[in-house]
């Protein structure tokens, strides 16, 4: 019976073939690949061509090839292991044993297919990410450079509006100037937003920590936005936890920017009801207070499927002209909150309102009682100046900027102004004149302003080490600012500047 079963169920999958030294078949059991006696073994497959090259004729050889794909005459594919046995005894023919392991290798093929595909896909994904990052970096650098170029002409517009407003004008003309000024301010803010986003995205925005009266900031916000809310017939409610320390060490400008942005947004998208601004202290630990900030409105709300994208750059859900903006505000807010190691989330019910929640730590000085701030306005310092006239050098090649500075300083009546348009002439002028202050453009033709500053500081002239040198620049990356300081610049006036910004800085450094 066993033999009967064997006859029925046993399918031999191994073929034995013998060949002579020329590769011609001597014998074959033809189990897998039928082959005629005397035929070249390579008629089965090109695999067998040039076999003799594999063997040392002087000794017995046993060589195994695994996972070789062969086809029979009907083009059916087999995956086989093949053994060659050759013998030093020349009378013994070469033996070839072919084992058909197709089923086994089929499984191996599936495993390898899935493994390789997964590795290749992850490599491709990694490359795509790298490409996207490079593209993003390029975009941000482009934006930074572009906004820099826009800031320069805007300086002229803003500065001359201030100057123009002080001249005799009809009421109609005053209105026109006001329109120009407000448009320029709007443009300036938009450029600022774009630049800020690019700085956040390339990680070049640094926080500037300072000690300030936090309660005062909140009171100021409460006052400002109560007025704005009233103008829209809205209620503005502030729920401020007095346990939050009065003095905080943080980037005041950025914290103000976050809060203003969220409150402005809430007011913008609410037409009836109220906006609630709440700030609660959680635990205090190691000179840090953890706070929850909530800005809640009863406005138009955000559709559930759009909640994920509102923090993306250039996203504005409502594109109607009713709501102006670059769509960068929330992206900046999120970037700033995260830069401060905080978290921001949004909850919304379309048609009912939106709530933004921030959680962050704020650093505070332990001894709040003894903390005080000197609040004297820089511009007020002009009342305490020691000289009647101050000599100022303006190194600037842009005629528009020259005229702006000239007009602003001339109105004050406290200054003699020298203007130099080329980097090369600055040093000579500094040697021959005793200036009280230098306003230095960075991108000067010839030698750049920061390089010139370094040279001035090294001149063997008495006041060159101490003379205030203020950079006029639209390069606002922190790396640039640090470089200017390192080169010896005293402070930076950002372009575009207006009258009060320029005067504040100038008076700050005059003795």
């Amino acid at each position: 019976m066993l033999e009967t079963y064997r006859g029925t169920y046993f399918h031999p999958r191994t073929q034995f073939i013998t060949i002579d030294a020329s590769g011609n078949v001597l014998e074959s059991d033809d189990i897998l690949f039928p082959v005629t006696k005397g035929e070249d073994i390579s008629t089965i497959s090109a695999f067998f061509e040039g076999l003799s090259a594999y063997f040392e004729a002087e000794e017995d050889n046993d060589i195994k090839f695994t996972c070789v794909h062969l086809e029979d005459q009907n083009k059916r594919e087999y995956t086989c292991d093949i053994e060659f046995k050759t013998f030093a005894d020349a009378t013994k023919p070469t033996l070839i044993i072919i084992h058909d392991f197709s089923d086994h290798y089929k499984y191996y093929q599936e495993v390898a297919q899935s493994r390789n595909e997964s590795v290749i896909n992850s490599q491709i994904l990694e490359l795509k990410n790298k490409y996207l990052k490079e593209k993003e970096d390029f975009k941000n650098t482009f934006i930074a450079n572009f906004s820099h170029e826009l800031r320069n002409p805007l300086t002229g517009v803003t500065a001359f509006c201030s100057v123009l407003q002080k001249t005799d004008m009809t009421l109609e003309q005053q209105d026109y100037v006001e329109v120009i000024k407000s448009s320029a301010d709007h443009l300036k803010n938009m450029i600022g937003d774009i630049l800020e986003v690019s700085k956040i995205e390339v990680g070049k925005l640094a926080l500037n920590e300072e000690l300030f009266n936090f309660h005062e900031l909140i009171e100021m916000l409460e006052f400002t936005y109560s007025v704005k809310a009233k103008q829209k017939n809205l209620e503005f409610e502030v729920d401020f936890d007095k346990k939050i320390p009065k003095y905080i060490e943080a980037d005041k400008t950025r914290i103000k920017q976050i809060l203003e942005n969220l409150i402005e947004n809430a007011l913008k998208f609410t037409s009836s009801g109220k906006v609630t601004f709440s700030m609660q202290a959680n635990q205090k630990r190691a000179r840090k207070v953890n706070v929850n900030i909530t800005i809640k409105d009863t406005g138009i709300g955000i559709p559930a499927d759009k909640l994920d994208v509102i923090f993306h750059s250039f996203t504005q859900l409502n594109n109607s002209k009713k709501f102006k903006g670059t769509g960068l505000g929330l992206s900046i807010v999120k970037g700033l909150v995260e830069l401060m190691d905080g978290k921001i989330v949004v909850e919304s019910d379309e048609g009912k309102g939106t709530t933004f929640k921030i959680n962050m730590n704020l650093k505070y000085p332990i001894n709040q009682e003894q903390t005080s701030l000197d609040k004297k306005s820089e511009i007020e310092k002009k009342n305490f100046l020691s000289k009647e006239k101050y000599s100022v050098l303006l190194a600037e090649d842009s005629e528009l900027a020259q005229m702006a500075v000239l007009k602003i300083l001339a109105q004050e009546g406290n200054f003699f102004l020298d203007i130099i348009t080329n980097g090369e002439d600055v040093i000579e002028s500094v040697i021959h004149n005793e200036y009280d202050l230098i306003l230095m453009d960075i991108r000067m033709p010839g030698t750049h302003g920061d390089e010139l500053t370094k040279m001035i500081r090294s001149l063997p002239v008495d006041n060159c080490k101490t003379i205030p040198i203020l950079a006029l620049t639209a390069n606002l990356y922190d790396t640039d600012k640090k470089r200017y300081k390192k080169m010896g610049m005293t402070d930076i006036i950002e372009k575009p500047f207006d009258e009060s910004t320029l005067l504040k800085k100038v008076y700050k450094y005059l003795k």
Partner: protein
Amino acid sequence: MKKASKKIILLGHFGVGKSSLIRQFVENTFTTDYKVTIGVHILKKEVKISPEETVSLIIWDLEGYDDIRKTRASYLLGTHGFIYVFDVTRPATFENLKDDITYLTNQYANTPLKIVGNKADLVTKTYLKENKDMFAVAPDFFTSAKTGDKVDDMFIALAKELVK
């Protein structure tokens, strides 16, 4: 007419297009479906390298490895020439180019070798020119199994070298 039979082997990482290069050369076909090669496939093509000389190329298409040293030694027996293939779009496939080529030239000093950057159709010629320093060893050919660009040239150049 003179006729020689030569065994050549294609080596390189998986997914770089070794099988596609062979299929393009032997059958003039190309498919974007990736089917992993396990073990070895052997194909044959006769190449006329001059009016009076033909070479029968026995082309061994080996399973791709990320380490060339893992190649089964028995496959390499009696090899007359190597083609080392990498994918110009996947740095992982040419990160060890220098080491692999050094290994091959040390182990098989007198065996002709062609270094091939495949999938060149996926990048521009300018990209390849500007980024040639990415490849630690200068490739002999940039091929595209998809378009057939430089595929025949590469095999024929090797065939000619094998019968020198």
